[in-house]
């Protein structure tokens, strides 16, 4: 029975691990082997870093990774701050404009603007071709506000009240009492935001005309979706790395940084998700 369980678990793990291994292995393989093995290599005969060299010497990919890190870091910080403030305000009954603001938030949950209204707003605000165009439209997610508000409302009223009796204002209550109790949910929401910013490519495509400002996901897309490495009429490609290796290499480059974030928030993650699920 135990052996069967082990086998089953190994199979499940393999389902997740094998594609990852394949991506890394293909990115390190030669053209001959990739073609021979139908485009997906599990064990490379001969390891070559040609695809990574090509990506890093081009100058596009390192810069794009930098842009993505910036957008993700600044965006997540801003998002967490604004979402926390909004959710806290909405969690205190009787706060100014409580109902109308809540209605707006729920409204934003139900209706999302189309491409063109979004573009016109960003363009009118003069944000085109600026990183803020990718960050600001996504800075507050109504969904996360609702989750966080629900969590804040579950914090025992007695705690807040006793703080108030001790003379604490709202600001102190938020920073000294509510936030320290909400680490788990904040890290989960922070992760949601971070992954969202890291993966943002469509807003970047629409709002950033200058390709030098593109984040890594948009660059990745030009490698993976366009299907063609070269273009290509009248082209001699010489000994360039094969398209599949390039695609897989940039995939690796785009996955690794965000993957590195997980271990830091993992211990909060299970708890945070459960909290949101049960009490939300």
């Amino acid at each position: 029975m135990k052996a069967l369980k082990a086998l089953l678990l190994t199979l499940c793990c393999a389902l997740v691990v094998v594609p990852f291994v394949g991506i890394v292995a293909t990115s390190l393989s030669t053209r001959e082997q990739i073609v021979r093995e139908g485009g997906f290599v599990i064990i490379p005969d001969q390891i070559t870093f040609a695809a990574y060299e090509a990506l890093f010497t081009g100058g596009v990919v390192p810069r794009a990774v930098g842009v993505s890190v910036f957008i993700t870091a600044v965006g997540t910080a801003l998002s967490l701050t604004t979402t926390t403030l909004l959710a806290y305000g909405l969690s205190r009954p009787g706060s100014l404009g409580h109902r109308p603001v809540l209605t707006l938030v729920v409204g934003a949950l139900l209706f999302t603007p189309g491409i063109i209204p979004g573009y016109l707003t960003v363009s009118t605000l003069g944000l085109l071709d600026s990183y803020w165009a990718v960050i600001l439209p996504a800075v507050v997610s109504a969904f996360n506000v609702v989750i966080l508000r629900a969590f804040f409302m579950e914090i025992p009223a007695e705690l807040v009240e006793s703080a108030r009796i001790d003379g604490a204002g709202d600001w102190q209550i938020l920073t000294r009492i509510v936030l320290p109790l909400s680490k788990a949910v904040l890290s989960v929401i922070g992760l949601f935001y971070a992954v969202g910013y890291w993966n943002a490519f469509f807003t970047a495509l629409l709002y950033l005309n200058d390709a030098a400002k593109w984040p890594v996901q948009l660059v990745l897309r030009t490698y993976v979706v366009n299907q063609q490495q070269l273009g290509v009429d009248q082209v001699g490609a010489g000994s360039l790395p094969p398209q599949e290796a390039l695609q897989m290499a940039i995939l690796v480059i785009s996955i690794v940084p965000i993957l590195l974030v997980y271990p830091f928030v993992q211990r909060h993650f299970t708890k945070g998700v459960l909290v949101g699920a049960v009490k939300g």
Partner: protein
Amino acid sequence: MLTRRTLLRGAAAAAVSGPLLAACGDGGADNQNTTERNQGVRLPAYAPSTVVKPDLPGNADGLLDAFLSYPDPPVQQFTGPPLTGGTVSAFVLTGSPVPPPKENNPFWQELDKRLGTELKLTITPSAEMAAKFSTLITGDDLPDLIVPALFLPNGVPAGIGNLPQWMATKCTDLTEYLGGDAVKEYPNLAAISTAAWKQCVYNGGIYGVPVPRGVAGTLMFRRDDIVQKVGADPDPKSFAEFRDFCRKVTDAKANRWAIVNAGGLMFLVQQMLGGPNGWRWDGAKLTHQVESEEFRKALSDVVAMYKEGVVHPDSFAGNAPTKRWFNAGEAVLTADRYTAWPQYYAENVAGPAFKISGMRPPKYDGGGWAPTWQSSAGATNNFTVFKKADKGRVKELLTLCNYLAAPFGTAEFLFRRYGVAGTHYTMQNGGPVYTQAGVTQTALGVRYIVDAPDAIFIPGNPEATKTSYEYQKAVIGTSVPDPVIANGLFSDEWSRKQPVLGGIVNNGQNDIIAGRQPLTYLDEMIKNWRSQGGDKVRQEFTEQLQKLGVK
């Protein structure tokens, strides 16, 4: 945050952005794009270039010039930059990974120097062109040069309608600069074929400069090295012989099939039957390919062939890597554009024995060759419109375009396409071969602003160049165009519904071939196609063909 779902919603929003485009118009603009007006346009006088003499000459039917090696030394056509300062902005597409930004891109810097101006490019991946274009035109801040259409000049296939109305209000009518003999001021533009210019005509004027391509379009590539090894007759004389050919070259145990996908079979068998290329116009009635008897017959034959297992088994997978299968020898035939010749040689892994050529379709019952189909995109890849500007500015931009259209064989072409010798390419066996820097830095999309007439040239492989040329020479005289493209027609409904209608045909065809639907499902497919816009498109095109008096 953006999820897949919001993205799809966004795409849907882009698809219905037509009315918004209409709002750009002045209300009266709707009537400008009429057949009568477009028919009366004075097209640029054609004056073929004599700057470089090809090794194998093209002809007026659309056969392209061919070059066995890049002329050495290349002809220097210009003595200085076309412009003297300022900036030129352009919205272009690219099918390649995004190039490095200007400060890290010596090619771009050198290009600016040679053009005498600062080139500011908004480079958009071709897959996202439609969404980006719909947002671009909502703002008034347009670049000088805009590539509005993606691969199909008679409207944007991703569903942007009212293109002519938008052009009428926002773009320059170039007729006074290019019509008739006026084009001679720009000799490289005068060397572009009349067929290509026809595809830039809207609203009774010339509304852009074309990126010309050969009309030869798609052909059936064949792995001659494998066919020879197997010992099959490479040129079947009838459908029955073709079927035998496919059976003979297929060997599933050796991981080899006759063809990469069933779509390629449909393409070839319909040509054998003399089926319509896109549409058929008999002087009174316009019939779409899918409604024709030839399509029905071809479909039933292909269903049978698919059952026999001559098609690559993974061919229905999304984004099937057909080029790789062909290169790896997993398939002996693949239908692809003539422009793919060099890529197949460049990415070849079979060694020096690798040899490809074009397979001509025989007549279905034998008795000679069947006519092939010309490109469904006509004689262009795309065209580029000019933002409304004063005369002086328009002339400047045309001077720039004239420079960017320097023909194959010139030093200007060599630089524009390949960059600087030593840095971006090296000459090997008479052909430029990119370095890694060349591949990444030159993919600016400038070639999609305007281009010289295409030439047949497989770098470093004169034999393959000859094969490609000979094939094109053999088929071009009898090849048939799509009447809608050949007559430069525009249907608003077609420009909007092409993706939907194309989807009905493709999905239905695949369902039937893969055995998910019976052959009789074709009738339902046709009914759907007609009711979802096909009939309206037909009506719009028919009226235009009648007005033009096309027989």
